């Protein structure tokens, strides 16, 4: 999962480089030269970019993996026989991928992230383009030889299969028992829920001149919420005598803080906070938290189009009071609903964790 995200980011950078090269070529070749970067890009330039990205993906995937995947130690394989996918399959896979990313980013860029997060819910971490081309992404072994098990934990060659099954059952019980001791998802879920409920309050647009409040709120709320989560994990680890360290969450909190400060004047605070909790969900292997953070990030990310929609509604139906209400309090309502949902999910998880 981490490797997949890393590979996706690297390939996005390659695609961005392709976009830049195509864009610059067009700007210099055009007569008269383009002076403003805001000038509308004609359709054929976008088409060239899409085809170039598609060719890049097809060419690299056919041999077994894109540049990003090769760096991250991943390969694309035929789902049935584990061989490299070949040109035709690679072309289909890349076509579906480019089309999906292009169409989704046309609606809103956060949907692209949602598309990649689908892999959490498809067996074998596959994505629609993998399913379409019957491929799968696998991790390559770092060493060529088959993985040797250290002597201390390797079974005797004459181990009885019945006994092996008994050991496996035993270990599975042990795994579940110790997993039950971890209070993994409930606290961050509740914290994120509270942050969003309070965000609903901070986002009231009638603060008027105090319009800086929502932004300031998100700059503070994300890091503080993550710090509370880290502290809570630390407390549980001290009490139970077991649990992962909280250092990774502190690092995430600091990164979220930096990102929030850097982006303080873009309406990205809510999305950055959600991304921080998404990272916590990923490093703590909690599907509930990852999914919840992804959903809230996407909903918050969609706030701008939503706002445009509600403004449009108000203009279209100026006499309907509900439209005005939606326009003025839409964000508040969305955040409040999201926060309540997270609180409910968090308390249900907490109850399950405590009873386990």
């Amino acid at each position, binding site marked *: 999962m981490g490797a997949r995200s890393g590979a996706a980011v690297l390939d996005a950078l390659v695609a961005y480089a392709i976009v830049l090269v195509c864009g610059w070529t067009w700007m210099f070749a055009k007569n008269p030269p383009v002076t403003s970067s805001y000038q509308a890009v004609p359709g054929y330039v976008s088409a060239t970019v899409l085809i170039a990205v598609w060719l890049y993906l097809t060419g690299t995937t056919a041999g077994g993996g894109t540049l990003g995947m090769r760096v991250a130690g991943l390969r694309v394989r035929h789902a049935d026989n584990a061989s490299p996918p070949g040109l035709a399959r690679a072309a289909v896979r890349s076509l579906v991928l480019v089309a999906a990313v292009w169409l989704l980013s046309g609606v809103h860029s956060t949907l692209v992230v949602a598309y990649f997060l689908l892999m959490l819910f498809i067996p074998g971490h596959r994505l629609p383009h993998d399913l379409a081309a019957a491929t799968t992404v696998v991790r390559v072994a770092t060493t060529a030889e088959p*993985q*040797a*098990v*250290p*002597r*201390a*934990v*390797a*079974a*005797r060659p*004459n*181990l009885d*299969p*019945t*006994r*092996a*099954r008994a*050991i*496996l059952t*035993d*270990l599975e019980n*042990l*795994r579940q*028992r*110790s*997993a039950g*001791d*971890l209070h993994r998802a409930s606290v961050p879920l509740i914290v994120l829920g509270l942050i969003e409920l309070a965000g609903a309050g901070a986002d009231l647009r009638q603060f008027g001149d105090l319009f800086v409040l929502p932004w300031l709120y998100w700059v503070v709320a994300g890091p503080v919420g993550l710090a509370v989560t880290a502290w809570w994990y630390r407390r549980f*680890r*001290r009490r*139970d*005598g*077991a*649990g*992962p*360290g909280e250092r990774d969450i502190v690092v995430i909190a600091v990164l979220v803080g930096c990102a929030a400060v850097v982006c303080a004047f873009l309406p990205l605070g809510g999305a950055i906070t959600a991304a921080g909790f998404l990272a916590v969900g990923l490093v703590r292997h909690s599907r509930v938290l990852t999914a919840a953070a992804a959903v809230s990030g996407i909903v918050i990310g969609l706030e701008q189009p939503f706002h445009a929609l509600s403004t449009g509604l108000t203009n279209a139906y100026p006499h309907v009071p509900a439209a005005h209400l939606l326009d003025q309090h839409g964000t508040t309502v969305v955040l409040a609903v999201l926060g309540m949902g997270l609180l409910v999910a968090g308390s249900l998880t907490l109850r399950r964790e405590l009873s386990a």
Partner: protein
Amino acid sequence: MSDGHAEQPHPSVGLDDVVHHRARLGILTVLGQVRKATFSYLKSQLRLTDGNLGRHLEVLAAEELVTLIKGYEGRRPRTWVEITDAGDAALAAEIATLKQLVSRFEQHGALPRQDR
């Protein structure tokens, strides 16, 4: 004590190995979940004695599958055990081996004992 290094298997050595195998895989399994745990947590989860667990942890630490961190909580000494990347890999590899063994047995499971 034997760690599976003995070339000449005495019957009791084999039995020891099975028990050790299970205990050490158990330690790695618990740590694979919680990442870091105290000595006493492992002891209660695995129902091992002090000496037994200590010995297994030393063996695992010698192969760098776990790291032992001795520290204090207040004035009481407290040992934390943390799993390493090699420990994760070893656990995954051994579980895969066991699963393979079981599935091979189940595929030919209709007449398991006849050729023995």
